[in-house]
């Protein structure tokens, strides 16, 4: 009984310490962002941020890049993960290793590699945002692949595929009409993780010289006092909003389309 009680106390202590580690800096940042007006709390820093056209431009640019990264990443990863799970499960460790490379290769190395190869003819791609999107796709691979792979493992893709094929469905119909709709949560998770990665990514955008959101925050950070904190809070809110959206959509899905078993 005594041991149980002390274990519970230790668990709570660690929980509180962990929460403090994450929450205190956030509260401090939010509190600091409200101090732009001397002596009173105000939203002045936020007003200043929202008054800057650069904020919208950089955020808009990052949004576009995030959308493109999600589309390109999905087009690349979904059929690959589906095919590996369906026909080549023995290749799964290899694919998993490849998708983990962005964790091993630093973004700065990736950026220099891209610049080195694609900054001169015949592969002059540095002036095109396509190169930035390609870099983002590489950085988002671990999140995208794992989300989709987990989703694919949760359903019986072999039987669903064969059932659809027996009804005359082409491979594209099988993938987009049968498999993908059953991966909604996995695809959303992958999409939002990619979104968060792209919005917060600094190195690639900065070294490839694109006006993205993270370099803009860095720029503001070097010239303003309270606005960087306001921008940080806005970034957090955007990320939390994305996670909330995943939970809301995921919760709704579990009501309507779980895989059924024998009854």
């Amino acid at each position: 009984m005594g041991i149980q009680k002390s274990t519970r106390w230790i668990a709570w202590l660690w929980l509180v310490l962990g929460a403090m580690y994450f929450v205190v800096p956030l509260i401090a940042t939010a509190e600091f962002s409200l101090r732009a007006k001397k002596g009173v709390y105000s939203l002045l820093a936020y007003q200043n941020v929202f008054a800057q056209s650069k904020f919208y431009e950089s955020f808009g640019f990052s949004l576009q890049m995030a959308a493109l990264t999600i589309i390109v990443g999905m087009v690349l990863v979904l059929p690959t993960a589906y095919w590996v799970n369906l026909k080549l499960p023995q290749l799964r460790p290899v694919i998993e290793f490849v998708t983990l490379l962005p964790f091993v290769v630093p973004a700065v190395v990736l950026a220099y590699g891209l610049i080195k190869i694609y900054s001169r003819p015949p592969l002059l791609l540095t002036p095109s945002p396509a190169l930035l999107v390609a870099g983002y796709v590489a950085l988002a691979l671990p999140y995208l692949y794992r989300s989709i792979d987990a989703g694919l493992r949760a359903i019986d893709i072999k039987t669903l595929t064969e059932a659809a094929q027996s009804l005359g469905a082409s491979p594209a119909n099988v993938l987009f009409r049968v498999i993908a709709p059953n991966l909604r949560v996995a695809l959303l998770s992958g999409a939002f993780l990619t979104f968060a990665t792209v919005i917060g990514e600094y190195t690639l955008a900065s070294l490839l010289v694109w006006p993205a959101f993270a370099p803009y925050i860095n720029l503001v950070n070097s010239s303003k006092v309270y606005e960087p904190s306001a921008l940080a809070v806005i970034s957090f809110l955007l990320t939390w909003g994305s996670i909330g959206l995943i939970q809301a959509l995921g919760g709704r899905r579990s009501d309507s389309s779980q895989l059924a078993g024998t009854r």
Partner: protein
Amino acid sequence: MGYLELHNIQKIFGTTVAVDNFNLDVARGEFVSFLGASGCGKTTTLRMIAGFETPSHGAIVIDGANVLGKPPAKRKIGMVFQSYALFPHMSAADNIGFGLKIAGKSTAEIKQRVGEMLELIQLPQLAGRYPHQMSGGQQQRVALARALATQPTVLLLDEPLSALDAKIRVELREDIRAIQKRLGITAIYVTHDQEEALSLSDRIVVMNHGKVEQIGTPFEIYNFPATQFVASFVGTANLMNATVVDARMVEVDGHRLGTHNVLPAGPGAKLRLTVRPETLTLADAEGPNVVPGEVQTVTFLGSVVRSRVKIGTHTLDIDALNNPQHVPPSPGDRVRVHVPAAALLVIG
């Protein structure tokens, strides 16, 4: 010439021969079951007909055309899976209409056909339900309707009742047979359940270790098993080692037994015989084909009482219909067993 023909089908996985020298002609509208234990190659054969596996050797002909090389989507087959395989994100109606949508049918056509199919499976009230909102039996009915909606040339059923409980299984198998007869569709049914195969099929293909042991009607398969495997896998079989005495007489453990058919070997030859438990009876007196024995166990099976009797080196099961007026023997009782000459079969 059958409607569905399998010619010398062989399937090899690595070094394992999963199906070997499989030949079968199925007539239009016929209901054929592949019966065998797990791993005997019955599902592999079905999957080759569907196009999910490619034979290592042989040809598959449907309605006069060799379908080898055609993908499953082009074979015009309907398939029902053990795990139902309904699309979880679609309602029952959408599942049934999926194949029609793929085929580019109009919305009105799809609606009409889906309605007909729901009537056929007697579940029109479940059109809007999702798979997880239906019972296993309902899901399998919807899966059957989905497979039939596109009017396939052959219906393939891969152990469709295995995941259901006993009562639903019996109900649904009767419905499957009734629907198949009404539509006149050619059907191949894979099962490891002998009762299912016997009750449903026009013909049964009994398989063992990738090979066909016997093809025949349920009556033939049960009453005239061609091999020891068929005799013991389909129903219960008593097996005996015998020595031929003359053309219609064998000796088993020193007891002479007459046979109805002329024996395929000469005097002194060793034969393997089988006899069904329900053909044996306990006799009151000595006589031809009556042998003495000792009761070892008596098992009450409801409608049947099974007595296990030791006769020399052999143990024979004897099934008698349960009769409350008739007290069954007890273990240790000395009894006489009548082995009808017509019930003794020589097996390969």
